[in-house]
């Protein structure tokens, strides 16, 4: 039983990362119906932005200052890249058939990975990330079930981020404008909503959350890698689809579900298909099964009407 509970905790931690990144996918998709493949790279850039900030600050800076500064650095890098990407790659293609922005996204994704690989110093293989939060510090959650400090931080940050975002989208004026645009962009524009600005807002919010996830990932594993955005990006998109794409609570639910499925399948799948080697395969198998039986995702009622 302890093993199961422990895996439940591990799955939640994994799911928190997926959920944070998935929010960016789902918000952008909800408004412009674009699968922003490069969003995984925004997550990766968040990690590298934080690393750069760390290296730029003088050694001996107390962690209490360092950590927020790194977070801020990561967010600034991610948001800047996301805004530039929207402005120069996606906006000119608005009105083009659907495949065009998707392929652009693919190109942006490859280009961002390669930029980091070639031009970030020593980034051809994984770079060490400062372990500011001691991973050996374990918190007991009853019995033998434990969670280490960076993982706890990940979950806390993710929950705070998700709650803030969903409150913002539900309560604020901009948030309601976003919902209106997602429902019917033409009518929203007639009501005086500046859709261009809203789209940028969606990119900015998504990028900020992805950057937070990227920094958390770096703290948890002690390294950042130019490749880390690709698989996380695909899985976060999977999570968004799983929860019902375009739906903010859905992205969170999908993220946690996917994290749990991955961890549980690794542990409990019938031999020989258990173990780390198969965990990514299981994530996609679950995606296909969910889409077959519930094509609009777990919470995807609203989107269903549009299909």
């Amino acid at each position, binding site marked *: 039983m302890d093993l199961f509970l422990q895996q439940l905790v591990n799955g939640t931690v994994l799911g928190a990362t997926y959920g944070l990144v998935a929010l960016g996918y789902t918000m952008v998709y909800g408004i412009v119906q674009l699968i922003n493949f490069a969003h995984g790279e925004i997550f990766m850039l968040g990690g590298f932005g934080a690393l750069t900030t760390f290296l730029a600050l003088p050694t001996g800076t107390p962690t209490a200052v360092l950590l927020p500064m790194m977070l801020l650095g990561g967010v600034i890098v991610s948001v800047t890249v996301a805004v530039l990407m929207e402005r120069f790659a996606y906006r000119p293609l608005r*009105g083009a058939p659907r495949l065009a922005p998707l392929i652009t996204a*693919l190109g942006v994704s490859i280009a961002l990975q390669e930029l980091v690989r070639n031009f970030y110093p020593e980034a051809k293989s994984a770079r060490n990330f400062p372990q500011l939060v001691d991973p050996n510090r374990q918190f007991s959650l009853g019995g033998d079930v434990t969670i280490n400090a960076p993982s706890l931080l990940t979950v806390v940050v993710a929950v705070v981020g998700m709650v803030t975002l969903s409150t913002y989208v539900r309560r604020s004026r901009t948030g309601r404008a976003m919902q209106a645009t997602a429902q019917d962009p033409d009518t929203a524009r007639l009501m005086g909503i500046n859709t261009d600005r809203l789209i940028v807002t969606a990119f900015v919010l998504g990028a900020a959350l992805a950057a937070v996830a990227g920094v958390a990932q770096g703290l948890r594993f002690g390294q950042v890698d130019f490749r880390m955005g690709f698989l996380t990006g695909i899985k976060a998109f999977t999570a968004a689809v799983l929860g019902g794409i375009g739906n903010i609570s859905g992205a969170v639910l999908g993220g946690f579900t996917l994290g749990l499925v991955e961890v549980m399948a690794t542990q409990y799948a019938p031999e020989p298909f258990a173990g780390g*080697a198969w965990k990514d395969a299981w994530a996609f*198998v679950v995606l296909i099964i969910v889409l077959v039986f519930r094509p609009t995702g777990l919470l995807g009622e609203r989107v269903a009407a549009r299909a």
Partner: protein
Amino acid sequence: MNQAAFVRTRLQARFGPAAALIGLVGVLLLVVGCFLPWAGFAGFPGKMLNTAPGGSRLYVLLLALFGVLFRLDWPGRARALRGASTFALVITMLTVLFIAYAGGGLVNLGTGAYVALAGVVLYYLGAQSLPEDDVVAPVRELPDGRWRVLIETLLVVGVAVGALIIFVIGLGLPTASVADGPDHRLGGAISLNDLTNESQFLCFLLFVCGAMLALSRLGLVASVGAMTKKHSRVLVAAALMSAVVFPFTQGGNGYSLRIAASIGVFAAAAVGLNIVVGLAGLLDLGYIAFFGVGAYFAAIFSGSVTSVIDMHLPFGLVILLGAAISGVFGLLLGAPTLRLRGDYLAIVTLGFGEIFRITVNNLDGSAGPSLTNGPNGISNIPDLTLPGGFNFGENHLLFGVDLPFQANYYWLEIILIAVVMTAFLRLAESRIGRAWVAIREDEVAAAATGINTTRLKLLAFVLGATLAGAAGTVNAHVVKVAAPDSFTFMESALLLAAVILGGMGTVPGALLGATVLYLLPEKLRFLQDLRLLVFGIVLVLIMRLRPEGLVPSKRRAREFHEPGGGADALSAPPGHRGTA
């Protein structure tokens, strides 16, 4: 864009009346410069020393020939001249820079280089200052007469032969050799020695682009294109002939034949993917997995010593079974998911691609059942033998030419492409093909006209998977190995890029896209680590500047370039928004 137009207006205002004169003087200087040596030392690739133009000088000279347009009043001439002169300028400047680099400074430039530089700048200025064209170049037709059909046929054959010649020249130009002397690197990544060695290929590529641009702005490309449509059988026959004789042009060079064979596999897969993406509009991001199913099937059942199953099926059976199994996978995956929206299909196919790669990576006996030899893959697939005792692994003497064994595989690829192409063309023209296009354009409207959209989409998907499986079985024999690394998401993305770069929904497009995408990394080694970066940026630029691809179908081009012809302002196709 607007800035360039502004500068042009200023130039036109200042030099307008004298534009043709300036341009002609420039062209004359340029021609003279091309017959003088550009390099003051031996050793620079591409014959820069003597007086007979070769290498880049020849390309510049040919682009200079467009200068006669300064004296002719053809429609579209200003734009054509602008294109030709711009490319001539770029090629000249690049070549001069490379010579200066290779010779260790400007002192080693020959007199011709200075004359040509001066000429090309005037040529460029003259072309930029020409008044705008009044009319767009029309599609021309030959006058009626006894010789019309013959001339048209010859022109169409000329297109195929010309394509072969361009391909042979491009393939034959040297790639980076071992650098002598200290190498300098640009931005820490680009090797300048490699770049200098490959400058010929780069200049050749620029020349082809410039000439095609100028010709198309004169309306000649469209005119010949119309003729190829009229005589499509002649074109197909001529293209097939050109492809078949290609090995004889290589003088027993097995390496270039191997590259050509690999391009063939890549192109066959691209044409297959074009059915799925280009015709039916289904975004398949895991196409390489179907290719991989075929490849692994062939690898396992062809008597390789590294295969766990000791069975050697005849090649014909392997192709059929490999294609069929791949098709079954397509059916299993497509049947439940094709009723979903397009984006979901994209992610499901992506997921399938990943599952496939992970699975073949794991079936090594430790993480799973032993079948695929894990990350090492199945290697040493034996050479093909035909029942008559013909061994694909041996050199053969044909028409007095000793052909390396790679030629056998090359011809096998040609047959494969011919089959896939035939399938594509027959389908595209059929009732099924028209239904696919209707679904691609607007699924709701297509369903309303009585098309069974789910069944037809499934047909496209399964057919694409089957063709990929067949191509995969052949490829396993050509490269003699099947390993998980060859079936990553990046490969699927590359195939998709080939289809899109070439032009969705057309066969020449897919072939051209596959050739360019395969050949560029082979030929532009100087980019080294930056190749993928350049690839990503190029993908973005193509989508922005020419989203319909290099050889677009007419319908696609309209869809992308006419206001209101595409989707609404927020990029969703019309049918997907109606019930929001």
